[in-house]
């Protein structure tokens, strides 16, 4: 759309800027403040420069949390995106079942995150949970509170359960926007189902899929409540993702300096990733 240049449009944006800045800029400055100071309690602070940043960047603990975070994020993306597309492709396009599918699929998205964690905890418990009981009676030695592998399996399954629907809904929105004429033309040309998918459906879904990847990438980096309630980061530290580690340092040990430095590093990583995707998406929109 052709937009007119109008500097007065700023007045429309001011309320948003004020509210968001209040919530974003002040806390962020507080974090920056803590990240360059050392404290011994009693509200006395000393300048410590970039020491905390160096300490965090060189600590094994941070490296391990970051590695777990990356493994988690890329695993769930590799599962949720193709699965979501497959489900969207097989969903009905017309008729009464559409609403039923959409409402039921959207349900996991509306459940408070700690309830998701609690629900999966109850569901996966070795003796009394459905999944734990079934797996154990099938001969698997499944116990997600003791074995790191099982904890990871449960964690990934929970995230797939929780968020695949988001990908489905986005892909579905892209699919229903394709006019019937495209399919008719493809049928006249004798296109195979895969060709239809590759050259008609996939390009049309490109934009919504970018949004899907973007949202899943960001949100999986922020994930805190569900794994915290499910496993508490355990057993040991095996499922301690970045945010869990951060909260442990900040609110558990009250180490303000390292926690603040870690917050900033963490935030910068997320920011870099989102900037990359935002640029890609905007380029896609201009085409």
């Amino acid at each position: 759309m052709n937009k007119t240049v109008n500097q007065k449009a700023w007045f429309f944006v001011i309320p948003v800027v004020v509210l968001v800045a209040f919530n974003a800029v002040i806390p962020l400055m507080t974090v920056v403040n803590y990240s360059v100071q050392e404290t011994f309690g009693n509200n006395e602070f000393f300048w410590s420069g970039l020491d905390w940043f160096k300490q965090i960047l060189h600590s094994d603990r941070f490296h391990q949390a970051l590695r777990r975070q990356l493994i988690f994020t890329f695993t769930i993306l590799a599962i949720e995106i193709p699965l979501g597309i497959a489900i969207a492709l097989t969903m009905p396009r017309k008729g009464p079942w559409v609403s039923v599918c959409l409402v039921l699929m959207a349900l996991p998205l509306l459940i408070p995150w700690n309830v998701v964690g609690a629900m999966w905890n109850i569901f996966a418990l070795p003796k009394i949970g459905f999944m734990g009981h079934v797996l154990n009676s099938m001969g698997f030695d499944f116990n997600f509170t003791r074995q790191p592998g099982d904890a990871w399996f449960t964690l990934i399954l929970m995230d797939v359960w929780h968020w695949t629907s988001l990908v489905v809904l986005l892909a579905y929105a892209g699919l229903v926007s394709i006019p019937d004429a495209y399919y008719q033309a493809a049928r006249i040309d004798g296109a195979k189902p895969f060709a239809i998918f590759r050259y008609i459906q996939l390009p049309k879904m490109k934009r919504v899929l970018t949004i899907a990847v973007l949202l899943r990438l960001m949100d999986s980096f922020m994930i805190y409540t569900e794994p915290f309630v499910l496993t508490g980061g355990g057993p040991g530290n095996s499922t301690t993702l970045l945010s869990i580690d951060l909260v442990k340092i900040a609110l558990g040990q009250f180490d303000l300096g390292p926690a603040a430095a870690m917050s900033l590093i963490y935030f910068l990583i997320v920011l870099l990733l989102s900037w990359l995707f935002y640029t890609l998406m905007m380029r896609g929109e201009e085409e």
Partner: protein
Amino acid sequence: MTKRTNWIVPTFYIFFLMLPIYWLINMSFKTTNEILGAFTLWPQEFTFDNYIKIFTDPTWYTGYLNSLTYVGLNTVISVSVALPAAYAFSRYRFLGDKHLFFWLLTNRMAPPAVFALPFFQLYSAFNLFDTHIAVALAHCLFNIPLAVWILEGFMSGVPKELDETAYIDGYSFSRFFVKIFIPTIAAGIGVAAFFCFMFSWVELLLAKTLTSVAAKPIAAVMTRTASTSGYELGLLAAAGTLTIVPGAFVIYFVRNYIAKGFAMGRV
């Protein structure tokens, strides 16, 4: 992929989605003895005790009221400030518009864990700690950017000719905006409100950090119960089941726009 067998995939997926939810509901009707004693697919001694406890104990039901209060406040604030801003982004070019839009989006992407401690200090300094409005304002951090993003998508789908025709017909800007433009994008507003509701309803970390007694959200009541009063799984399951109800209720209202809404109006 043949057409006739297509229904199998969504059916299996929905079955997979419903299984943990069924288990939660199943547990909520069991007695603690039964839960811990034996593995049963449905309640053998059907009981409403867990629900009765929740509806009669003030610490439980005020939790629900607190949550609904700040979620409602947040939805109203977010959508009403996002409306003019989204209009500006969709219709005009102005100094720094792209950077501003990106800055807004970065806040949607800020991990709440980063902000937990500074938020506590900020809202305490303003004497807002443990009030509904504090949580409502804090959730604006990620809900306003989201609302702007969604509304901008929907507004960009409305041709500019609509605005121009209205001005030719002698409408002032404010009359045009309220009488013509808002009804035109009513679906978009509904969807934006739905998303604000959803993200405010499911978030716990900030809500828990900013409250202690008076505005304690239901989710926080649940975590405390889980950790202090032993292992009352039935009660926990009943409370969890009840938190699904408002969500299911709002989904039903926006069911026809839900797919378009998740695509932020950009299809």
